[in-house]
């Protein structure tokens, strides 16, 4: 039996046993059973509604929704000429109209006093409700910091081996803090509100003093400007084990030929130097994997900075080490 049919059985049972007679209540049932997006659900609902006194329940329940699904109404097919004409009309419609003559003589509006309040329409790339979990998954490191590993103790003692040290369970921890490197290149300009929002979220997740924030352009290896300082300095390598988070587009969005668009080899050299120093670097990219440079995808830790990214996906990307030690 297919999974959707199992859930439709739940729907039918619910509607039948609870004697649902209100369309709005029936819609609530669909939502609660996560069936509201199922194409066949309305038909199933009609069938279920028909199940009642005088209706052969067995017959109704054997008519699967798939059998009764009405044909999908598709829009009429356009000829290639018609499609071209439509595209032309759209193209003309999107061209900027000429400025009206009164525009030059009209004074500009006065700037509002004080800072502009943040737009209520702003939706960060990591949704605020999920940001904590997503950042925890990104910044967590493994440490033998957990409770006593009883199983390991028992194994040693059962084999009459002395315990030279108490084994502890390996757990994920945020106690090592993080170094956050923010790409201030041209390509990241559209994502500035997201960067600010994410830095605020990191500040809520990690204790004060555990986060060092630096800005760079190109790659961090060219030099970094510590937050609040005017001078550029060489990238300060953090202590071994400290996670490094790079908020960057890897230069994808910068103009071609710009200094803000470093070569893949330059990024690889940066990631390699960090790896050799025992520092795990993770880059959060606002662009999807299809746009990631070929030489980097797969060889370094890249995470899509997007509202569809899940903590489980981040763990899959970053956590083979975590999973192996569990």
């Amino acid at each position, binding site marked *: 039996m297919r*999974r959707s049919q199992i*859930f439709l059985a*739940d729907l039918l*049972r*619910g509607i039948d*046993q*609870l*004697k*649902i*007679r*209100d369309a*709005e*209540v029936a819609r*609530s*049932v669909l*939502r*609660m*059973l*996560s069936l509201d997006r199922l194409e066949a659900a309305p038909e199933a609902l009609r069938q279920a509604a028909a199940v009642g006194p005088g209706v052969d329940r067995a017959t109704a329940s054997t008519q699967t929704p798939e059998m009764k699904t009405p044909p999908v109404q598709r829009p009429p097919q356009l000829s290639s000429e018609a499609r071209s004409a439509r595209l032309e009309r759209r193209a003309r419609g999107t061209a900027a109209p000429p400025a009206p003559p009164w525009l030059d003589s009209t004074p500009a509006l006065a700037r509002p006093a004080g800072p502009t309040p943040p737009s209520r329409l702003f939706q960060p790339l990591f949704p*605020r*409700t*999920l940001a*904590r*979990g997503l950042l925890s*998954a990104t910044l967590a490191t493994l440490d033998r910091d*957990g409770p006593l590993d*009883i*199983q390991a*103790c*028992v194994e040693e*003692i*059962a084999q009459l081996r002395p315990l030279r040290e108490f084994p502890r369970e390996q*757990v*994920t921890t945020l106690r090592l803090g993080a170094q956050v490197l923010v790409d201030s290149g041209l390509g990241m300009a559209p994502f500035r509100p997201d960067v600010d929002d994410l830095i*605020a*979220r990191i500040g*809520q997740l990690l204790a004060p003093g555990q986060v060092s924030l630096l800005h760079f352009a190109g790659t961090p290896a060219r030099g970094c400007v510590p937050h609040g300082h005017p001078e550029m300095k060489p990238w300060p390598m953090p202590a071994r084990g400290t996670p490094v988070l790079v908020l960057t587009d890897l230069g994808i969005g910068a103009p071609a030929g710009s200094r803000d668009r470093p070569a893949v080899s330059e990024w690889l050299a940066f990631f390699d130097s960090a790896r050799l120093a025992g520092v795990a670097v993770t880059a959060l990219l606002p662009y999807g994997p299809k746009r990631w440079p070929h030489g980097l995808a797969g060889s370094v830790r890249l995470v899509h900075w997007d509202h569809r990214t*899940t*903590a*489980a996906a981040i*763990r899959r990307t970053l956590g083979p080490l975590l999973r192996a030690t569990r």
Partner: protein
Amino acid sequence: MDLGFKPRYFDPARKGAVDPERGTVTVGANLAAGVPAYVYSSPIILAVNLARASGRPLFVAGRPGTGKTTLSRNIAHVLGWKYYQRVVTSRTRAKDLMWTFDTLRRLSDAQEQNRQLPPRAAYVQPQALWWAFDPASAATRGASASERSQVTRAVDPAGPGRKSVVLIDEIDKADPDVPNDLLEALDVARFTVDELDTPLEVRGRRENVLVMITSNGEREMPSAFIRRCVVLTLADPTVDWLDTIATDRFGPDPFHREIAERVMTLRAVAREQNLREPSTAEYLDAVAASRALGIRPRAKTWSLVAESLLWKREDPKLPGTR
């Protein structure tokens, strides 16, 4: 009250007061039994009925402070069923909800000279899902008939009874693998205790157990998990809702509503600033403290009450105060 369906499996109106105007049912608190009051709306009653009709877990989502935990306790009270609660942490594993095994005590026993080690069942401690699915085998810790004389019986923490509500609280705090590891156990009400000398399959009857799982929405749940649940999303509290709960707890008093209005304002500000929102429980604390200390919301000292019991920030400056 016309719900638009027949609440065949769960009808709080039998134990509570119906408010046809608001379309709610209030089931009063039983503080001696640790049961808080709850105001049921029609979607909540529908979701519980649906979970029971389909035998599926009820996944309750909603922002902190919307009364998810309170709801489960009250449902158990209305149904007259046993109640098990397990708060999930980042260290909780799926197995911890079924049973635990005391390795250390077994090792200690094994060190004693001239001692016959009891069966492994002696070191097994049944947990919420085992007690709910099969209290009889849980009481014997899964020991076989020949082993039972050597195993101390376990005591059901929820007392006698065949039917139960199990709350798995804040599952979004758990490791992402936990929901997936629970899939089969919750789907077919069955799991295997594999740390016994002879593995035991624990089987439950879905009609005897209502599993409730809550989430604050801090982590997205696997879609396979959600598909196996009836999903109820609790709306944010309203002034009316808070007022009704406080009135049930303390009796009618116009200043409940005043405090409720202030709580709603603080919730809005906290939401805007992405801070923790004062919860229903904190609202009740504020009402109780205000009643006991005689501090009314319009008094000068009210802001101190609000800062300590509702706002709770390191920088306790209450929004709207100087």
